[in-house]
């Protein structure tokens, strides 16, 4: 009962802030709504028993990536709003239609699964020691992908520095 109330509240907040992110006029407002969205998603992770990821979500997304976005908004000092220039070949309605096609696809899959319910047996409950659990899997089974991810971050860091330099 408590879980259901928490889930529905968080789901409503996540979706509401998601809609606000893509509809807000000002980019800075968009970013602030994005922070709220990330924090409620982190709360949803706690509800699912993934405490470590909830902390990662807040630290990396709400702390790191959002600050990066704010810096870029500050650096690109817009003299005219980006929505002012309108390319006649680009139609917003068409984009919306494509989004609704994706929605219809998802609904079709959901209806199909309702007709043929596949049952997924619930596994054993996870141990409450979430950090230890994640760490054990990450550093034994997925050690090589972990190292590759560190290489990816290094390459991205160098790439970002090279791209953002004054003289390219």
């Amino acid at each position: 009962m408590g879980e259901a109330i928490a889930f529905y509240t968080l789901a409503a907040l996540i979706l509401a802030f998601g809609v606000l992110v893509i509809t807000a006029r000002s980019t800075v407002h968009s970013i602030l709504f994005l922070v709220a969205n990330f924090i409620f998603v982190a709360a949803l992770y706690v509800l699912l028993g993934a405490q470590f990821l909830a902390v990662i979500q807040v630290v990396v997304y709400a702390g790191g990536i959002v600050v990066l976005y704010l810096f870029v908004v500050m650096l690109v000092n817009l003299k005219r709003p980006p929505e002012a220039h309108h390319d006649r070949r680009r139609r917003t309605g068409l984009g919306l239609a494509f989004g609704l096609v994706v929605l219809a696809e998802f609904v079709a899959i959901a209806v199909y699964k309702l007709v043929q319910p596949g049952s997924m047996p619930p596994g054993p409950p996870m141990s409450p020691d979430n950090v230890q659990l994640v760490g054990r899997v990450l550093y034994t089974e997925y050690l090589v992908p972990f190292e590759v991810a560190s290489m990816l971050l290094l390459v991205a860091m160098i790439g970002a520095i090279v791209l953002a330099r004054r003289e390219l």
Partner: protein
Amino acid sequence: MTPITPAHYMILSAALFIIGVIGVMTRRNIIVIFMSIELILNAVNINLIAFSAQVGNAVGQVFAIFVICVAAAEAAVGLGIILAFYRNKETVNIDEMNLMRW
């Protein structure tokens, strides 16, 4: 009230994904488009973690960590590209990003 199953999380995740897709399709400000991509990646993470909790092992959470890592790399490089583009054309409107159009 029915108990919360992975199907509930999948529906939430699909809804968030579609919000992100509509954002990518309809907005012209490239910074907002990048934020929509972050929404899409978040939707994927919700799915992974819901199934991780259902199946009862931590592999889904490990993959969510990798997704967050890729999202961070994507944001850093993408925002670098936005800055480089802005220095050349003084705009962040994707309709004007046609330097490489044939």
